[in-house]
């Protein structure tokens, strides 16, 4: 048993399984805990490497927790390590959400369950509203940001345009805007 637990791949899997299990409400909440475990306890990364990984994970698309898992797993034990870490971090979600979805299908008629769901739904609106305000404050600092945010919202909410096109459109606009701004700054110099 001890031999199995000492296996580095199993260790990676278990650590990230725990991270996945304790991440409730958003990957970023767990950052200090993950840093504590990876940098101080297990010493798998230096603080700089951890911060690099965090920056990459947030800068790239996709889910931060998965990006982090891939990054750390890869650094530790190559592709096999990355696979162990990623599977580890998504396992809790898979198991729990499948059970929850199964229960949903079964008990949706029950008055108490649907009542509880009403509370959950109202709370979801509140949580996401809270999130958009918190995330929005540092981002919506320029006219450009406000215009892009409102435009994205209106296009998604009021037209049938698919989200993928809004994102691609946003990338294109951002590239053009950044190019213009970078040129302007060069002119000033």
């Amino acid at each position, binding site marked *: 048993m001890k031999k199995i637990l000492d296996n580095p791949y199993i260790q990676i899997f278990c650590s990230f399984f725990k991270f996945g*299990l*304790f*991440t*409730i*409400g*958003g*990957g970023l909440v767990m950052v200090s805990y993950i840093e504590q475990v990876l940098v101080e306890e297990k010493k798998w990364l230096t603080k700089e490497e951890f911060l690099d990984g965090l920056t*990459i994970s947030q*800068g*790239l*698309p*996709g*889910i*931060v927790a*998965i*990006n982090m898992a*891939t*990054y750390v797993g*890869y650094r530790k034990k190559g*592709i096999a390590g*990355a696979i162990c870490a*990623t599977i580890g971090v*998504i396992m*809790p*979600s898979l198991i729990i*959400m*499948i059970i929850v979805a199964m229960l*949903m299908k079964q008990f949706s008629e029950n008055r*108490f369950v649907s*009542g*509880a*769901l*009403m*509370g*959950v*739904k*109202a*709370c*979801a*609106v*509140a*949580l996401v*509203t*809270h*999130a*958009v305000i918190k*995330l929005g404050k540092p981002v919506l600092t320029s006219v*450009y940001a*406000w215009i*892009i*945010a*409102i435009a*994205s*919202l209106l296009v*998604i909410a009021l037209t049938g345009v698919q989200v*993928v096109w809004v994102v691609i459109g*946003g990338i294109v606009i*951002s590239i053009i805007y*950044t190019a213009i701004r*970078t040129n302007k700054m060069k002119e000033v110099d």
Partner: protein
Amino acid sequence: MNLLALFWEFFKLGIFSFGGGQAMLPWIYEIGQKFCGMDADEFTNLVGLSQMTPGPVGVNAATYVGYMSEGIIGSIVATLGVAIPAFILVITVSIFLKKKGESKFIQGTLEGIRPVAIGLIASAIYVMAKACFFDIDLDKESVGSIGELFSHIEIVPIIFCVIALFIIGKFKLSPIKSMGIMAALGAVVYGFGLV
């Protein structure tokens, strides 16, 4: 092959979603509509459940939609679909990281995309509020006037939402605690027929 199509949809999502799990929500809603006939009400359920269960919101939502579309296999396919692009991208980037360093241009571009993510999250609120606060499905039925719109407002969910905002904002309770309280409140109020 529905499974392949499902995988591909989540794969695309994995490539293009900037801004975290919550910015993925409107896209996941689209996939849900396409693959399991999800309506706004069920979407709001999904958002709530994804927030209160362990695991990143994006993974939870993918698993749920995958399950509702194609059962257990579907949930595995969906989750892998979202995870694999990250896998490829992160490994590629970390190989090249030391060489590229920081590019002002890339930084600027990434910064420019963040407002889009904010807009996406806001659109999810719009969909959920529509489903939660009105007693008719506004996507299917139209309303003649503002007055008529107001007549369809459901006060109880709105009160619940205000209570939740209070709990989260003022008392700073964690998502899982606030969800737990609101779920219990809802179960009691609706279960015992108090409204």
